[in-house]
Every structure is written in C-alpha cells, then in structure tokens.
C-alpha cells in the first residue's frame, strides 16, 4: 500500500518507461526507412500497445482489431504441431500484409502494404529482436515488482 501512496507508478513500471521511449524511436526510424510500411507495434500477448509508430495517413481505428491476441492464440496452437516454438506468422491479405514476431513476453507486429518486400519486413523484424527483448525483460521485472507489492497490501 505504501508504494502506491508515494509514487505515481509502481516501482518496476517507472524503470520501464525509459526503454519504451527508446524503442519508440527505433520503431519510428524503421517506419521511415522502409517502403510501404504502414505501422509498427509492440504489444503484450493480450494486445495492449507498449510502443507504436504509424504512418501519417493511417487512422487509429485500423490498429484496433485484436491482431496481437489472434497471433497469441495462433502461436500457442502452432507450438503443438511438434515443430518447436512458433517464432513468426506472416499473413497476406488482398491489399495488406501483417508480419508478427513472437518475442515472448512481447509481440512485434509490422503492418505493410502487399507491395512491400516481405524479406525486408522479416529482416527488419529480426533486427528489432534485441531492443524488444530488453524491454521484455523490463516488463517481466515490472510484473514481478507488482506481484511483490500486492503481497504486502
């Protein structure tokens, strides 16, 4: 209880804000340097957005669908095929393509036009693995701190 009374954020969450801002800058760079890329999102497995970069002509409601939650379920299921853990799912639609990476506990989603080069998107997603894993560790620590704080309430 004491922790929540004197601080705006729980202890772990405060430490999470800095890496999230740095990741946001990485995503913005990627968006600007990749052709036909419309949006880059980093979410948790429930679809809650931690960092995002979107193109200027992309309305917010485009990111509303449960992209990450769908991926999360599909990724869990494909883990039962006997091919080991799922790393990535690429879905191609009439006008768009979505590439999603499983960087547990986080998910990276790249939304691009179908004209975009799929190989470039996959390579870009792999390049972001390290920074996302750093944020992922901070998220895990923040969750642990929160659980500990709740034990004292």
């Amino acid at each position, binding site marked *: 209880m004491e922790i929540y009374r004197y601080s705006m954020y729980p202890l772990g969450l405060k430490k999470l804000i800095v890496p999230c801002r740095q990741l946001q800058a990485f995503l913005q760079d990627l968006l600007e340097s990749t052709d036909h890329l419309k949006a880059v999102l980093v979410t948790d497995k429930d679809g809650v957005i931690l960092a995002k970069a979107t193109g200027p002509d992309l309305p917010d409601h485009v990111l509303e669908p449960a992209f990450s939650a769908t991926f999360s379920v599909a990724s869990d299921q494909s883990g039962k095929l006997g091919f*080991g853990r799922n790393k990535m799912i690429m879905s191609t639609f009439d006008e768009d393509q979505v590439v999603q990476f499983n960087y547990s506990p986080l998910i990276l989603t790249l939304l691009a036009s179908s004209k975009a080069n799929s190989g470039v998107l996959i390579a870009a997603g792999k390049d972001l693995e390290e920074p996302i894993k750093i944020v992922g560790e901070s998220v895990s620590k923040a969750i642990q701190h929160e659980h500990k704080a709740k034990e004292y309430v």
Partner: protein
Amino acid sequence: MLKPKVITQVLQQANTAGVHAALLLNPDGSLVSFAGGTEKDAKVLAAVASNVWFGYERYGKPPAANSVEGGEGKEGLRNLILDCEQGKLSITRTSRMLLCLVADERVEWGLLKAKTRTLKEYLEGPLNLVASY
C-alpha cells in the same frame, strides 16, 4: 468425382527440396487428402491449420485504411505462413478447401510461397467443379 489417388499424386509432386508434406483439407479441419508423413500427423496438422486460418480470417484482418470506423471493408486472407523453430507451414485457400504445405526450417520463404501458389492454381479449377456446394 474426386479421384483420391490422383489428388495424392498431385500433392506428392510438391514434396521436394525440404517440403515433406502437402495436405488438402475441408474448412472444418477434416482431411481430404495428404501426401507425406503419417496419417496421425496429417490429422493434427489439418486441425491446427484450419483453426489458425479461420482465427486469422475472422479476427486478424486489418480493416482498409479508408473504411469507416466500426464498419465493413475488410480484406480477404490470401496466404498464411507460420515459422516454427523446426519447421515452416504455408496455408492457402483453394476453391472451398484449404491447402497446407509443411517444410523444414531451411526451406526459403519464396520457394514455399511459390510452391503453395502453383499447387493452389493447379487444383483450383478441378476442385471448383466438384466443391461448388
């Protein structure tokens, strides 16, 4: 009439260069025909492939950027590729059925996508004649 033996022979042709199974399945996940691997494995693959495909078809579509908020204007799913630690799966729709190719992790994306597309186009015509229900 569908000739199961001929379908299996067509599917078998995709099983080269790292691709080790090709499956044709109904939208409900029941197996129509397969080439490569055991029947037990094929049934599991078909069930999971169908589930993942319809999950993405229902909830994984990005609405068109110019669509009205909360309105329709969603796109159709064309192809799905799943990359696992020890294998890759490519799923697409052909006629009213689903086609699924299973490859090992060393197979290149482009090759897997091209094989899936070629097989889809080859099967689409004949399957449209029998699966128009």
